C-alpha cells in the first residue's frame, strides 16, 4: 500500500522551473534513493513530501490525504525530515535540539515528561551523539551536527523518514553507521525511507529502489541494476563510467 504519493507535482522558483510534473509513489517500508545531478530538483522534491514547500500544481498525499489539509502536528508525528545542514545561532545543547523532535507530542504549557527523555536518550544513542549530549550545537563539526539532526528526526518516531544527503559531511565509518542504522530501522521497524544521495554507489547498495532525476523530471526509476547503467549515467551526468560489480567507477 502506498503511504506517500506525489501526484503531478510542478514547482518553480520565480521564472526557473525546478520540478515538472513529477509522479512518485512511496510504498510502506520502502527504501527509496533519489539521485541525480546538482540542480535536478532532488531537495525541492523532498521538501514537498513533508510540506516544507507547497507545490504550484499537483498534490502530495499521505495515506491518501492531501498533507496540506492535515494537521501540522499530525504530519510531524508521521513524517520526519533531516535537512542537509542548518546554522544554529543560539547555544542550544544537543539534548535540547533532539528534544525538539518531541515537540509535536508535547502540549502547550507542559514540559517534556520522563517518556520523552527516554525516547530522546535512545534516539541519541542510535545516532551516536549521546556522548556529547550536553555540548552546545554550535561547537560541533558539521558531521556531528548531521547526526544530531538524524537523532532529532528519530525522536519524532515517524512512519516516514526523509533524509537529504545524510552522509554528505560524514567520515566513512559514520557514513556506514548511519546507513546501517537507517537500513535496520527500515527492516526491523518498517520505517519508510526516502533518501537523497549524491553517492550513487552507496544509494545502490542500500536503497531498494532508485529514482533518477534530470532537470526536474524523473528520468527513470527502479532497481539499482536497471537505473545505474553506463548509458543512463552518460545521458544524465554526461560522463563516461565503468561499472564493476554494479559500482560506478570513473
Amino acid at each position, binding site marked *: 500500500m502506498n503511504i506517500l504519493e506525489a501526484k503531478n507535482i510542478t514547482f518553480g522558483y520565480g521564472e526557473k522551473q525546478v520540478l515538472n510534473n513529477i509522479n512518485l509513489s512511496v510504498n510502506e517500508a520502502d527504501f527509496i534513493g533519489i539521485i541525480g545531478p546538482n540542480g535536478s530538483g532532488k531537495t525541492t522534491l523532498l*521538501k514537498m513530501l*513533508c*510540506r*516544507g514547500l507547497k507545490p504550484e500544481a499537483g498534490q502530495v498525499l499521505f495515506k491518501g490525504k492531501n498533507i496540506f489539509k492535515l494537521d*501540522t*502536528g*499530525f*504530519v*510531524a*508525528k508521521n*513524517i*520526519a*525530515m533531516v*535537512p542537509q545542514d*542548518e546554522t*544554529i*545561532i*543560539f*547555544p*542550544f*545543547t544537543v539534548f*535540547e*535540539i533532539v528534544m*525538539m*523532535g518531541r*515537540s*509535536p507530542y*508535547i502540549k*502547550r*504549557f507542559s*514540559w*517534556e515528561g520522563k517518556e520523552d527523555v527516554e525516547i530522546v536518550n535512545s534516539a541519541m544513542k542510535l545516532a551516536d551523539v549521546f556522548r556529547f549530549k550536553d555540548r552546545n550545537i554550535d561547537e560541533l563539526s558539521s558531521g556531528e551536527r548531521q547526526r544530531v539532526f538524524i537523532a532529532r528526526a528519530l525522536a*519524532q518516531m515517524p512512519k516516514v523518514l526523509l533524509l537529504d544527503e545524510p552522509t554528505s559531511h560524514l567520515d566513512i565509518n559514520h557514513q556506514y553507521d548511519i546507513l546501517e542504522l537507517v537500513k535496520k530501522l527500515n527492516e526491523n521497524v518498517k520505517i519508510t525511507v526516502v533518501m537523497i544521495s549524491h553517492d550513487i554507489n552507496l544509494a545502490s547498495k542500500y536503497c531498494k529502489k532508485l529514482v533518477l532525476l534530470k532537470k526536474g523530471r524523473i528520468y527513470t526509476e527502479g532497481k539499482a541494476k536497471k537505473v545505474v547503467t553506463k548509458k543512463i549515467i552518460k545521458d544524465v551526468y554526461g560522463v563516461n563510467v565503468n561499472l564493476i560489480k554494479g559500482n560506478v567507477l570513473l
Partner: protein
Amino acid sequence: MKNKFKTYILLGLILLIAIIFLGIFIGGVEIAPKEAVKIMLSKIPVIKESFPAGGEDNISDILLKVRIPRVLLALLVGAALSVSGAVFQGLLKNPLADPYLLGVSSGAALGAAIIILSSLPFFFFGIPVVPFAAFAGALLSMFLVYGLARTKGKISLHTLLLSGVIINFSFSAVIMLIITLSNKGLAEVVVWMMGTLNNTNYDLLPYITPAALLLMFIIYMFSNDLNIIAVGEETAVYLGVKTERVKKILFILTSMLTALAVSVSGLIGFVGLIIPHIARMIVGPDHRVLIPFSAILGGIFLILSDMLCRSVIAPSEIPTGVVTAILGGPFFLYLLKRKK
C-alpha cells in the same frame, strides 16, 4: 529542565523583591525602611488598624505617589522591553535585534508624540489613547523595517539593522518637526525622547500593568514554538509548528508590548538588547526559561538604572535612556565585534 526553570525564576524573584525595596528606600529624599514599611502597611485594608498612619504627610506622599509608582513603572518597562528583545532576537535568529535598534520603539514614539503634542484628548470614553497610537506607530515601523530588509523572502542582517537605523532617524526627525510646530514645553518632550521614568503618566499605570502582563503571558505560551523557530524556520515547519502564523502573532504582540513601554517611558534603548543576552548567558537559550527570566532581569536592571538617574545629581535627574545607552552602547559594540 523544569527544575532549572524553578530554581532560576525563584532566585530571580527573590533578588527582584529586594531590589524593589531598595528602589523604594533610596532617592533624593531618603526614606528609612522602617518608616516606609509602616506607611505601606497602613494602606493595606485588613491590617491597617494596627498601623495608624503616623509620621509626616509629605514622606507618605513621596512614597505612595512618586516612589512606589516609579519603581513599579521601571519594573514594568524593563520587563516589557526585555521580553520584546528576547522575542525579536529569537524570531529574527539574530542576537543583535532589539525593539530600539529595529526602529519599533521610535515608531511607537511617533504615534505617542502625535497624541501627546496635539490637542487630541488623552482619554477616549475612558480608554487611554496614547498606547494605541504608540502601537499603530510600532506596527508601521515594524512593517517598514521588515519590508525593507526582506529581499527574495530572506532577511539580511545588515539590511535589517540599517533599515532600523534609517527608520529611527526619519521618525525622530518627524517627531522633532511636530515638537517644533506645536507649542508645548520643548525640554519636557526632549527628555521624553531620551527616555525617562520621571513623568506624570503614573495614572496610566493601572491600564498598562494588566495589559503588559497579559501580553507577556500570551507571548510566553509560544515559547516552545519560538525555540524551534530560533533554530530554523524550515525545521520548524517539519516539526509541526505553524511557523508563518506564530511569527505573525509574535511580531504583533511584541510590537504591542514595546508600544506600551514607550507610551509611558519614551525611548529607553538597549535594555531589550543587553538583558536577553545576559539572561541567555545565565539560563541558556530555552525561551521557556529565557522569557520569564529576561522579564525579571529587565525589571531589576531598569530599577537600578533609574536609581542612578535620580540619585547621581539629585535633586536634578538624568534621563533613564541616557544611562541605559551609556551602558548598552559599548555592550552592543562588544557583541558586534565578537560576532566577526
